[in-house]
């Protein structure tokens, strides 16, 4: 095809391209890009819900340094990344290997494993609150086998750990599908050659599968660490709006929501916390992807 036909097909009135793009640009401009910029600006003001506020320089950030709740939030969000990401990088890969082979009924299993992804986080949260309740299913099973009941939702650390488990449980199916797509591109000859050389299943996993899906592992690591750092719903639902015993289970986004909303909401201060969330998530993303590039070279 000559370049002139391309330009002829593309040619049109001067206004219509913008008519096509206008609704999309308007929406993301008004509700994503403008709020993003105003978050950055508000972080340097003492704006409140009903008060426009004034420029206060770095005062919000200085206050953050002395705010115990901020450090609790930062600690919990960081712990969340450390706890959830390794599990979400490895377990879905194993799951993908399990459902990869086309054996009878496998489509059913693949869909069934995806169900937690489809379900709303509220439903998932409420199901697990019930399962992990002092008198819930998990505890009655534990009691039946003689372990005794455990206060999954009343202890500060167990609560955080339970929320992490729920995040992993809900994310398994999603990352499994990403790994399935990556595994489909691994040449079968590699496995066969390794098998001929006498490598067992574990050996083949380490020497063939893992190197072949390394960049996908980095992608999953990046996606799950960004999501884990911004965790809100699971902890909010399991620990309650105030963040569990003495607020010790509050995460950063929970703090943003609690500080910035309501009639007395401190919009400026909440924006400063949001800026911290931006900076850390971008850093996490770059860190994981750079680690991947280093591993490749």
């Amino acid at each position, binding site marked *: 095809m000559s370049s002139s036909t391309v330009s002829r097909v593309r040619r049109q009135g001067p206004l219509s391209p913008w008519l096509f793009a206008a609704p999309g640009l308007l929406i*993301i401009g008004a509700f*994503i890009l403008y709020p993003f910029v105003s978050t950055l600006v508000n972080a340097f003001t003492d704006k409140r819900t009903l008060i426009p506020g004034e420029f206060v320089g770095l005062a919000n950030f200085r206050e953050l340094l002395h705010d115990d709740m901020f450090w609790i939030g930062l600690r919990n969000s960081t712990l969340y990344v450390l706890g959830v990401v390794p599990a979400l990088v490895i377990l879905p890969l194993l799951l993908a290997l399990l459902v990869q082979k086309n054996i009878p009924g496998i489509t059913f*299993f693949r869909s069934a494993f995806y169900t937690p992804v489809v379900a709303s986080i509220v439903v998932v949260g409420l199901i697990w609150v019930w399962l992990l309740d002092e008198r819930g299913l998990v505890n009655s099973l534990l009691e039946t086998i003689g372990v005794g009941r455990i206060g999954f939702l009343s202890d500060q650390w167990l609560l955080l750990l339970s929320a992490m488990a729920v995040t992993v*449980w809900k994310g398994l199916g999603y990352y499994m599908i990403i790994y399935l797509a990556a595994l489909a591109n691994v040449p079968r000859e590699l496995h066969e050659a390794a098998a001929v050389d006498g490598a067992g299943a574990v050996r083949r996993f380490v020497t063939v599968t893992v190197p072949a899906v390394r960049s996908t592992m980095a992608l999953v690591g990046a996606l799950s660490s960004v999501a884990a750092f911004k965790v809100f719903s699971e902890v909010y639902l399991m620990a309650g709006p105030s963040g569990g015993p003495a607020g010790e289970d509050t995460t950063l986004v929970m703090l943003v929501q609690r500080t910035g909303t309501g009639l007395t909401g401190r919009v400026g201060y909440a924006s400063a916390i949001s*800026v911290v969330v931006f900076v850390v998530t971008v850093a996490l993303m770059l860190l994981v992807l750079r680690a991947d590039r280093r591993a490749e070279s």
Partner: protein
Amino acid sequence: MTRVRKGELVLRYVLLLAVLALTVGPFLWQLSTSLKGPTEDIYSSPPSFLPRHPTLHNYERVSDTIPVWDYALNSLKVATANVVTNCVGSALAGYALARLRYRGRRAATLAFILAMLVPVEGIIIAQFTTMRELGLNNTLIGVVLPGCIGAMNVLLMRNAFLNLPYEIEEAAYVDGANVWQRFLRIALPSVRGTIAVVAIFAFMGAWDDFLWPLIVLSDPSKFTLTIGLNYLHGTFAGDERLVAAGTVIAVAPLIVLFACLQRYFFRGVGEGAVKG
């Protein structure tokens, strides 16, 4: 396909069933709880997995306690609006990015890429103040607007249009079709698969969303199902049967939708992940 040894096959099915119990079991337990009558002990140890006298009583009670069907209707309105706006808006914008030539196209593409990278959790407070300035707080329109044309969807549609050969539009151009006719009659029907993916994710995203409606909606009569459930949980934490019935009402439509459209689902997740 390589032959699968018998022992390995048995092991595979054992593992598959174990994971099945772990992923689907909690939903079934919830369903079972919702069907247990008021006289049945739901805290027994060892637990009883099947309700002794299954009853729909809890479903009646949940609708006496909170207007659960109104909430479901609100969720349906929000989700439907989200599907329509996302399909129409992203198809239009995606076509403009992929197929039309004009000054500023690169800038427009960049705007959508930037928007995709902005973490929504970090801008909710500013979204909330923007919404208040527009006087749309505490309305369902306010719930729909921020996500009504997702940047990710626009980029998905752009990729779909980019993959179409130019020849098919060329013929229509020679026949004198203008840009709108080419879009509607030629380009759009060729990307139906991607539109289906956008529609499914738009529905699921809107139906499942929690944080944004929680912030925007304050009037209980306008609650969506997810917010209503959280409210139910807070108010009647004592009766798990009611909460269980509520969650089943919220999750059942999605599981049905998913079961019908799972083929598109998996394709969509795979594509989105590889390209995103």
